[in-house]
């Protein structure tokens, strides 16, 4: 059975720490890795549009000396003819050594893993999980703070459908002494099962509020998210909630000097462009880190040691 990464909890804390160490080594010594995946092929199967994640996976594989194939829209695949996820994966696993897939339906990568003969990486399944974004976030936090424990992190925006939030809360709950501050409109609160499984069962403290400004001074990390139009069945509700939080230089006035601002991107207007110049903005560094951690993950799943 190939090793798959469907959920961030498929990796142990020790494995995550090892991936971060490998990514740091890739940053320091890129030439060492440039032919590590020669003659290996990564299939990127994107049944839903993406800029960063797909290009990041492809760039990661190319930087390892491998090659890529795939599609970036379900309409360009046999899915448009009614092919099931299982049949698509069965086919592609005959061509590729490893598959990264994004799908609008929750659990599609779990289904894919039942049919695949090669490792499957979940590159996002609906509003459910996005483990490689979580690895990106963890690497960014590690590079910003030089640790993955002992801090207060605020999550702000759409915590209900924000899959990156679910995965990151799950991942960080396994590290020591982290306080979670959950900032969202009442309609977009973190799902109960995430709070139960990741926080309550482990006795981890958290605060829930609708007011970002009242909690911003206590944060070491602020993780902003977009209210995602594609997750709403009702457009009126989306329009009512989409501008709930907009981070501006004025709102950051009371924040710590050492704050790090993360965002999985794309953003719409929840972080004002003026914030980009603030040295606390870490979201563009986050994009770069995404490539390095995906390189580390591809190496791990293919069993390649450098």
């Amino acid at each position, binding site marked *: 059975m190939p090793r798959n990464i469907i959920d961030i909890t498929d990796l142990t804390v020790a494995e995550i720490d090892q991936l971060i160490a490998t990514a740091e080594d890739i940053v320091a010594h890129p030439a060492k890795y440039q032919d590590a995946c020669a003659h290996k092929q990564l299939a990127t199967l994107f049944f839903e549009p993406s800029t960063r994640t797909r290009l990041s996976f492809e760039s990661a594989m190319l930087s390892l000396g491998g090659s890529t194939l795939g599609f970036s829209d379900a309409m360009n695949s046999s899915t448009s003819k009614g092919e*099931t996820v299982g049949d698509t994966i069965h086919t592609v696993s005959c061509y590729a050594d490893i598959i990264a897939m994004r799908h609008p339906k*929750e659990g*599609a990568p779990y289904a894919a893993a*039942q049919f695949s003969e090669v490792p499957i990486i979940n590159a996002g*399944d609906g509003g459910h999980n996005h483990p490689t974004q979580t690895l990106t976030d963890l690497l960014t936090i590690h590079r910003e703070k030089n640790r993955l424990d002992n801090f207060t992190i605020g999550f702000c925006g759409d915590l209900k459908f924000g899959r990156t939030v679910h995965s990151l809360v799950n991942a960080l709950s396994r590290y020591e002494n982290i306080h979670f501050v959950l900032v969202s409109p009442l309609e977009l609160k973190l799902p109960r*099962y995430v709070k139960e499984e990741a926080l309550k069962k482990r006795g981890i403290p958290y605060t829930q509020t609708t007011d970002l400004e009242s909690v911003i001074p206590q944060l070491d990390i602020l993780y902003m998210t977009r209210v995602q139009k594609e997750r709403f069945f009702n457009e009126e509700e989306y329009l009512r909630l989409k501008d709930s939080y907009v981070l501006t230089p004025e709102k950051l006035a009371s924040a710590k000097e050492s704050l790090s601002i993360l965002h999985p991107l794309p953003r719409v207007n929840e972080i004002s462009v003026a914030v980009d110049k603030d040295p606390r903005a870490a979201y563009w560094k986050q994009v770069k880190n995404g490539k390095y951690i995906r390189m580390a993950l591809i190496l791990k799943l293919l069993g390649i040691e450098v």
Partner: protein
Amino acid sequence: MNIDSIQNGVVLDHIQAGKSMDIYKYLHLDELDCSVAIIKNVRSRRMGKKDIIKIDSPMEVDLDVLGYIDANITVNIIRDGVRMDKKHLELPRKLVNIIRCKNPRCITVAEPQLDAIFLLSDSDKHTYRCGYCDTEVDRKF
């Protein structure tokens, strides 16, 4: 009220009163050709009232289904009129094709030919979640 004892078959005992028809449905007992007796509201010292189902034919009972519905049920295997085995149930860790996910965003709703898999997430609260999308089951039993 008398129901004949069976020679070869299965007796499901200690069913919570009123739940025997759910079990009849989930075990597909309507598809059997043999005699099936559903005895409701039997007096019980332990339970006050209970239901019993007697199946007059040897059959493999899906213990996962029964464990999911009510782990307190006992399964008695009868051979030549004698009880040969008495099985106590546990909450199954995994349910396959017993219940379906109701989350409209779940891949199993879009592709119903996939096995419906549910995993036990909290044994104290008897909570199951979809193995695909993590949606909690809305239990109706």
